[in-house]
């Protein structure tokens, strides 16, 4: 019964989405408040019904109801309870329900927090969200019904792909989706503003926090995925420039650009049509991410649902949404009133440069992502674009971005004092030169890595100097510093932390890529291997049994200069239901490096086991940096002035210029 109830609830949600999308649009056009007001109840109805469907599916998983095909294909009664939950979205059909559910949550948020929004704008935005929901519900019901029954029910299920049975990956998709779908908020408001033909600072103030929220979840989701790949795939790498990774990275880059351009739209009432375009592009890339992963167009480690028929639907939907909104943009954006011009040396110019570099960088990834598909379509050649491409084409674009990021927060709006800013950056410049020289002297290249570290040092120092200047550390009595610190807007604090986080992350990524060392050995108990000054000894190999797998576990002694640094237990797991193996790497982390051991297959000839050892310098900094980004974003989001729903048009126009000059900041 539960499955039928869920199916029924999805159909009702579809009807609600239809109501939510059509009637308020008509109402907004005719200025009919009764029709416009229908959006609210429709949103609540959609939320209730999608939640019901989601709960039904979850229930089917938790009680292992194998008469539901989706459960039989992706679950197993022996599976730990946590993975029964997470298996709900670990497959194509379930993840679509999650997508729609998150969309419904956002819709609910608009009705809950949007009390002071102009009713026309609000009802149009909700209608746009309703349209998106309609498209996905049709897709779900038409091509990927999660409630399909199996009769007779199988005795047991096929189990979730063991690679996906992992806490890191369990929460990677929900966070990523929360970010993807979150970008539907700025999108819906951008479309509503285009229809209305008006973008003002109040619009930007409303869009900014939602973009920030989506950006935080995207950041967290991507990091979690990267972390999972790092410890689970056993290759010691954290980012493979895999097409699926790129698919989530592109919306992130675009959302980052949007975040910064919305500041200009809010504080200076400029870059408005550009901000609208970024909002459209960011959500389009989210849809493209969904499309690329879900269709058979790309092949990748992650693609667990591949089916051209579904791809065709999403492609059609994508063309409708993106093509439609860009056509609307071409038609309506010229009518948006243009804002003032910029002085070349000003904060808004720095933010514009940031946007330019992020968008061009995103374009680079986009070209690399689609080129193989297009080439295949033209002459059937199969090509792939690997990490060396991105090191050569993407990294050089990010270098100036990071250089500007240090200067940007120091520049004043409208007209900045360049000599003064350059003077404040002198310490950062010293750090840049010192770090390049030092790392080149210590490691002797590659020179690109040394430059990357230098730029990270520049950004970190620049952000720190700006922060210390703001609170007048050591320049004023400590009491004044404390008062200033307490008075600092959280958004400024968030900016500083996020910029520092990027610097820390870059150090981890650059050093972890350039200076990692690895060795491969076949070891028997008692054997030693050497790497990066460490000695690893295999002491024992044993068997163990988990709830739904058997494992081979090795015990390794990690020593340096004859001193024990730790015992490590790499595992190789075998999941009998799907007949697959997974590698559980053992990682010993210090603040400055990871020592990483992955177990390979047993070697029959020698009776030993294959072992792969990695020394990954600075890789922990990637996770620390990402955490700083997320916390920085959170701090900004908690800023009183940015609080969701806080803005009103009157306050926005009265309070801005004074604050902007002194505090500024933002994400």
């Amino acid at each position, binding site marked *: 019964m539960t499955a039928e109830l869920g199916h029924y609830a999805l159909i009702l949600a579809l009807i609600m989405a239809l109501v939510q999308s059509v009637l308020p649009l008509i109402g907004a056009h005719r200025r009919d408040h009764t029709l416009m007001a229908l959006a609210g109840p429709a949103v609540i109805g959609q939320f209730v019904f999608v939640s019901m469907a989601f709960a039904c599916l979850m229930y089917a998983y938790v009680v292992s109801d194998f008469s539901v095909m989706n459960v039989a294909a992706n679950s197993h009664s022996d599976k730990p309870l946590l993975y029964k939950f997470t298996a709900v979205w670990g497959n194509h059909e379930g993840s679509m329900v999650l997508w729609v559910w998150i969309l419904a949550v956002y819709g609910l948020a608009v009705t809950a927090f949007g009390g002071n929004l102009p009713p026309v704008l609000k009802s149009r935005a909700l209608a746009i969200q309703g349209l998106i929901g309609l498209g996905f519900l049709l897709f779900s019901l038409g091509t990927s019904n999660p409630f399909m029954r199996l009769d007779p029910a199988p005795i047991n299920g096929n189990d979730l792909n063991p690679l996906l049975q992992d806490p890191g990956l369990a929460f990677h998709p929900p966070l990523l989706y929360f970010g993807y779908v979150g970008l539907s908020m700025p999108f819906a408001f951008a479309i509503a503003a285009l229809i209305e033909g008006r973008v003002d600072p109040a619009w930007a103030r409303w869009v900014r926090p939602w973009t920030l929220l989506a950006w935080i979840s995207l950041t967290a989701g991507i990091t979690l995925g990267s972390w999972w790949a790092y410890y689970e795939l056993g290759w010691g790498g954290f980012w493979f420039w895999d097409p699926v990774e790129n698919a989530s990275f592109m919306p992130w880059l675009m959302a980052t650009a949007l975040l910064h351009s919305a500041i200009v739209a809010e504080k200076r009432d400029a870059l408005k049509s550009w901000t609208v375009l970024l909002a459209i592009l960011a959500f389009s890339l989210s849809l493209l991410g969904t499309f690329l992963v879900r269709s058979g167009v790309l092949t990748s480690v992650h693609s667990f649902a*591949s089916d051209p028929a579904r791809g065709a639907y999403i492609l059609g939907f994508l063309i409708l949404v993106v093509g439609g909104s860009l056509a609307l943009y071409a038609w309506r954006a010229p009518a948006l009133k243009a804002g003032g011009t910029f002085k070349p040396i000003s904060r808004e110019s720095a933010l514009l440069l940031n946007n330019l570099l992020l968008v061009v*960088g995103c374009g680079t990834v986009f070209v690399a992502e689609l080129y193989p598909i297009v080439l295949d379509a033209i002459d059937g050649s199969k090509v792939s674009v690997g990490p060396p491409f991105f090191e050569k084409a993407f990294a050089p674009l990010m270098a100036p971005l990071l250089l500007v990021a240090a200067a940007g927060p120091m520049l004043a709006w409208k007209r900045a004092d360049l000599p003064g800013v350059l003077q404040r950056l002198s310490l950062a410049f010293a750090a840049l030169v010192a770090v390049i020289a030092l790392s080149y002297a210590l490691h002797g290249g590659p020179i690109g890595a040394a430059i990357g570290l230098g730029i990270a040092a520049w950004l970190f120092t620049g952000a720190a100097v700006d922060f210390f200047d703001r609170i007048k550390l050591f320049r004023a009595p400590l009491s004044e510093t404390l008062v200033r610190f307490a008075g600092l807007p959280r958004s400024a604090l968030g900016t500083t932390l996020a910029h520092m986080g990027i610097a820390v992350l870059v150090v981890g990524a650059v050093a972890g890529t350039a200076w990692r060392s690895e060795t491969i050995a076949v070891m028997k108990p008692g054997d030693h291997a050497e790497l990066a000054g460490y000695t690893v000894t295999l002491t024992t190999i044993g068997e163990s049994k988990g709830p739904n797998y058997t494992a081979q576990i090795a015990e390794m002694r990690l020593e340096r200069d004859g001193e024990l640094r730790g015992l490590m237990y790499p595992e190789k797991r075998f999941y009998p239901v799907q007949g697959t193996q997974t590698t559980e790497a053992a990682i010993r982390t210090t603040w400055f490096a990871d020592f990483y051991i992955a177990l390979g297959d047993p070697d029959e000839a020698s009776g030993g086991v294959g072992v792969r050892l990695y020394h990954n310098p600075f890789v922990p900094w990637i996770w620390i940096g990402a955490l700083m980004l997320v916390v920085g974003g959170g701090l900004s989001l908690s800023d009183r002035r940015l609080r969701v729903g806080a803005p009103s048009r009157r306050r926005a126009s009265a309070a801005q210029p004074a604050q902007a000059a002194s505090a500024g900041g933002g994400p």
Partner: protein
Amino acid sequence: MKRKHKRLLFVAAGMAALGIAAGLIISAFDENLVFFFSPTELQARETRPDQRIRIGGLVEEGSVSKEADGVTVRFRVTDLTASLQVVYKDLLPDLFREGQGVVAEGKLRADGVFEATEVLAKHDENYMPREVADALRKSGQWKGQAGDAKADAPNVTETAK
């Protein structure tokens, strides 16, 4: 500076960024695009000695052997028309199995042996790398479904005319 000039400055900056990006992309593509070949295609084609390429097909049954160092693996990759000897000095991935699809990246040595630096076996019962499926189809030996067929793929009936 006139306003018009300022606007021009921004447009010029934008164009410059785009131009630099295009230049970077083209030069990086030139050196770093990795082409995929099936063993049959590789027989008919010259590759530069230092060119990184990908090959793919099925791991030939009974062809996998380990050398005395316990790490170097030799196996043959076949598209059922031609086959290619591969050496790989690393641990094989979890999903590597005889008779199953595999993609390897590396260089073709002058002696005709493919020296792999990376072996990807990313498939399970329902899923095989698309390149491999296409390569098998091209060699005329395997008439699977295009793309990644899933067990619950839509019905297709093939019949003799």
